[in-house]
């Protein structure tokens, strides 16, 4: 990379490269140790690959963003209950874990410290119905955010999703070409 490039241009390629690295590693560990006879079913394999992709993306972004924290939390919760994805746990960065737990506890404690029930925010129409609500459901971890934060998270999420899709496309083409 030429040093004259501006940081804004560096960011998408950095994102893609880091995501690609993690994703490929996840793929390889998904397929190498276990024999293919383990899951012959396509949908199970594809589901694992999808989860690996989201995991890789979220761990690249780390704890910087709410959606990535929510995604990582969901996946790790799921892995804890199902006990299937042991590989992902190994790859956890220690710093991210400690950061993550701290913020997760903060998130939980916020939810428990419920605001005054007299508040009308529960019935705020723009939050729980309409298109904003759909956006809240789509972006992970954005259920209780206000509008500005929601839009901010949505932009970052769309950015990362687009990068993820592009990397996966090139990977697929790479694999199908050979």
């Amino acid at each position, binding site marked *: *990379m*030429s040093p004259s*490039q501006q940081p804004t*241009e560096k960011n*998408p*390629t*950095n994102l*893609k*490269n880091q995501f690609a690295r993690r994703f*490929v*590693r996840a793929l*390889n560990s998904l*397929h*190498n140790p276990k024999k*293919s006879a383990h899951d012959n079913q*396509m*949908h199970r*394999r*594809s589901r694992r*690959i*999808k989860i690996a*992709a*989201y995991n890789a993306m979220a761990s690249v972004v780390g704890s910087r963003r709410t959606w990535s924290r929510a995604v990582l939390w969901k996946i790790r919760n799921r892995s804890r209950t199902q006990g299937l994805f042991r590989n992902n746990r190994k790859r956890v960065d220690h710093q991210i874990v400690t950061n993550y737990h701290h*913020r997760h506890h*903060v*998130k939980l404690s*916020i939810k428990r*410290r419920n*605001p005054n029930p*007299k508040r*009308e*925010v529960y019935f*705020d129409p723009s*939050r729980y119905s309409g*298109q904003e609500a*759909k*956006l809240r459901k*789509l972006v992970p971890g954005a259920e*209780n955010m*206000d*509008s500005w*934060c929601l*839009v*901010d998270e*949505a*932009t970052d*999420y*769309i950015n990362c*999703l687009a990068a993820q*899709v*592009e990397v*996966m*496309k*090139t*990977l*697929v083409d*790479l*694999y199908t*070409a*050979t």
Partner: protein
Amino acid sequence: MSSELFQFVDEEIENLMSSEPPLENGNTFTALLELPPNQAVKLLHSPEEPLPTPNVFPSVFSATAKENSPETTSSILTLPNPDRNTSNPVKQEPLESGSLQNASPICSDPITSRPTKRKDREKTVKSSAKKIKSAAKVTEGEKLPFVHVRARRGEATDSHSLAERARREKINARMKFLQELVPGCNKVTGTAMVLDEIINHVQTLQLQVEFLSMKLAAVHPRVDINLDSLFSSESGPSMDCNFTGIVSQSWWLDGQVNGNTQLTWHPDRLNNFVTPETSLLTYDSGNSASWLTSQLKMEL
């Protein structure tokens, strides 16, 4: 972070105190801010009662503040305002989730525009806000401590609408950014349509991820290229362009093996790189290149 936040709030309180506004019986947040700290403590503990005449509790406010700063910040900010507008609680909620950029507009909003019922109260609020106002007017400032909004000509100067306008402008700025991000959104006008497009785009992307993962599941076990070792063997200046380098490299090898011209296609897809490719190719000269070709030959 909450201690910083609390110091910030403390400064604001002192600022407002210096302008000596008249006291009021209402239990609003600006009333809280414009009171001397002792009154604020009273308000904290008995939010529903009207204010008595000022009692003297020297430095109780700061003392309790330092004890338990997260608790007090949350209690300050979650002061019930049953008859006030509901947009403010909505903003106050995510305050604790930590980013100061959220905190600053929230703290400034009560200062610049809190609902008041008396006209002279409004005037004092605005005048105090203007007194404190700095020269910079911020429309999209994320890290500046104040969001000062001046009423434009022909617009309502109500403190309500000032805050609402500031908030709307912020959100609209972000929506514009989103519009550029989402393809095909420039022609559409209006927030509703833009939101629709955004939702559509996110759903499309998620579907694409699922579809691609299915494709990968179908393709992957057949061709077991161990790219991990390729990634790990690379080192030095080309780490950043690993992915693009390696993909192009394998395509180059593929071109060697199969003799097709896929090399012409991928420079459009991959971003940045001409130099790392050559460096990679020169680097791996014998080892991984031959290994990769042998892998390919074994699998196919």
